[in-house]
């Protein structure tokens, strides 16, 4: 049998089939559609997986909405969105490595941040080095923005914008004078606890206990025994869902019955009310967003109502603030690309820094540090197992119960 020589024609056919096996990107550009690649390293497994999955849901909803409308238009081209997800298994050092991998190997142009202030701060040095913008949906600690980085943006306002309205709402009950704080020894939970200490003291309250507990502690009875001895009128507990459910249950077990209980960040998630059951009643909290807010926006969703409808259609439940905040991070990249009329990361970064635009999430405008400064975070209380908005006045649904 004669060996067939490789002609120019068969060679190009081979190249073609090779291109088809390499991936979807080549196929899309062959059809004339360009792709903007966005990287997202998330804790999809491990202790922070509930939160990581929330962010993934938010990012994906935005990407689906954009692609359903044809893509993002810039510089005479239309770009489809492709998000590359990497699981860092709730292990912060791996979040940093994954971010670097996304930039150097997957060649993403933008980064959607990992979960929480700690991992976001750790990853922010990497995208800063490569001059790739990173938009963070769940990072609010000042320690991130003190670094004076240019490529980090956050959709959560500073912590005091959340503690101030809650302290104000609680202080309406004049018999509340003694505050006990039990904080998870972690970047955000500790920072917000310290902020609440300031907000309470500014209102003439006495902080009768301020204790921190280690990450991974299941039993809080020593701290709660101390809390009972301190006899507080108000308890402020910080941590994540698992911590706060255990803390609330053990407060009841040891007979700690203050006039008011506030917790963050758990009551904003439906899982908290489900797991804590009747003990969730009257627990107050604050969040950066709530499904009952109503804004009209220039983003891909168009309004809060349209966002809620799209969310429910895809996931069959209501979005919480982390989920909405994650979706708006994508929308911010899109608004930045449209304003810059380019997908060049540096040009988009400058456009995002100058944004002053309404979205379904609220007004989006960033301070010099990259942190959003245009939101008025709501205060809410769980009543009958459901969150009821207490403030701000425009979206108020009920009164704080004590």
């Amino acid at each position: 049998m004669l060996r067939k020589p490789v002609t120019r024609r068969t060679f190009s056919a081979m190249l073609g089939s090779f291109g088809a096996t390499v991936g979807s990107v080549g196929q899309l550009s062959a059809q004339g559609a360009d792709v903007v690649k966005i990287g997202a390293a998330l804790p999809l497994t491990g202790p922070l997986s509930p939160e990581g999955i929330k962010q993934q849901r938010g990012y994906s909803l935005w990407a689906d909405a954009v692609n359903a409308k044809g893509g993002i238009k810039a510089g005479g081209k239309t770009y489809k969105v492709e998000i590359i997800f990497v699981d860092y298994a709730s292990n912060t050092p791996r979040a940093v490595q994954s971010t670097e991998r996304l930039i150097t190997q997957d060649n993403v142009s933008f980064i959607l941040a990992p979960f929480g202030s700690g991992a976001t701060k750790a990853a922010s040095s990497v995208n800063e080095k490569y001059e790739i913008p990173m938009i963070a949906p769940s990072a609010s600690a000042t320690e991130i923005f003190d670094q004076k980085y240019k490529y980090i943006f956050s959709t959560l306002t500073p912590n005091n914008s959340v503690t101030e309205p809650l302290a104000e709402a609680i202080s309406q009950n004049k018999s509340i004078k003694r505050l006990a704080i039990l904080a998870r020894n972690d970047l955000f939970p500790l920072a917000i606890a310290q902020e609440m200490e300031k907000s309470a003291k500014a209102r003439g309250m006495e902080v009768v206990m301020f204790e921190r507990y280690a990450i991974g502690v299941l039993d809080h009875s020593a701290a709660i025994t101390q809390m009972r001895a301190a006899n507080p009128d108000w308890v402020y507990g910080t941590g994540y869902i698992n911590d706060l459910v255990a803390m609330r249950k053990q407060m009841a077990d040891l007979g700690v019955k203050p006039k008011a209980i506030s917790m963050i960040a758990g009551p904003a998630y439906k899982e908290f009310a489900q797991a804590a059951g009747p003990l969730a009643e009257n627990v107050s909290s604050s969040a950066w967003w709530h499904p009952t807010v109503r804004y009209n926006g220039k983003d891909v969703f168009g309004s809060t109502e349209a966002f809620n409808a799209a969310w429910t259609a895809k996931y069959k439940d209501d979005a919480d603030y982390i989920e909405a905040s994650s979706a708006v991070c994508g929308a911010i990249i899109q608004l930045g690309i449209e304003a810059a009329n380019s997908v060049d990361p540096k040009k988009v970064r400058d456009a995002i820094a100058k944004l002053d635009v309404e979205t379904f999430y609220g007004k989006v405008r960033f301070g010099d540090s990259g942190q959003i400064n245009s939101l008025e975070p709501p205060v809410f209380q769980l009543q009958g197992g459901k969150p009821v908005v207490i403030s701000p006045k425009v979206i108020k649904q009920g009164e704080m119960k004590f």
Partner: protein
Amino acid sequence: MIYLQLLANGIVLGGLYAAIAAGFSLVWGVLNVINILHGSFIVLGSYIAFFLYAYAGLHPFLAIVPAGIVLFALGWALQTVFINRVVTAPVLITLTLTFGLDLVLNNAMLVAFTADYRKVNLATPLPALELGSVFIPGDKLAAMVLAVALTYGLYRLLGDSNVGRAIVAVRMDREAASLMGVEVKQINAITFGIGALMAGAAGALLSIIYPISPINSTLFLGKAFVVCVLGGLGSVPGALVGGLALGLLESLGGYALGPEHSVTLSFSLLLLLLFVRPSGLLGRRGYE
């Protein structure tokens, strides 16, 4: 008096820790297998109790029985099919095997039950016991009493029954036991089954106290490790003493040094004990 309250907290916590660790200690002591699956077994026991309460209204204290039976069967099958093949291999091999099996079981639970936190909220919780200024939650106290009773039951089983004596014989000398007519592989499977049963029963008790999620398995495993080393491997009274020691230490130490140091404190003690008394408080030399 705050110290009496802390003491009470510590004893209640210690009883629960004993139940968490008893099965782990037995398996480690008898089979020389560090069973990384133990934490996931506890979580599976909690889920069984949770679903039986949610759908059949069975009180978690009664769910000890079905959770124990299911986990015994699972443990027995895992030992027979997988672990018996390598049980005489160096400890690193069996550790790797149980680590791998744990990844499978834990991720299967994540798929089946998701990582969402669940909790048994009893419709009629027991009232708290108030002794002067000391406040003891009723359900937690009952769970602790049952946990200690289970641990005692295991102790009697090992001392008084033929199976128990065979288990002890295998622990002391595998070859000699085999020469005396003990079916070592069968005893291995029963031992591993009992270890899993204890984990499942402990899980059912814990379901009313802690949130339930597959990701809590490593927390339970960590406690089991410390309790075993404190009390001495393979010794049931050791698990009880180790559990109480850890419970009291976390309670009193957490108060004296602040709750953020309670975990550091227990692991520092672990290191110290490994230096000065590696066989544990009640362990005997040659068992470890």
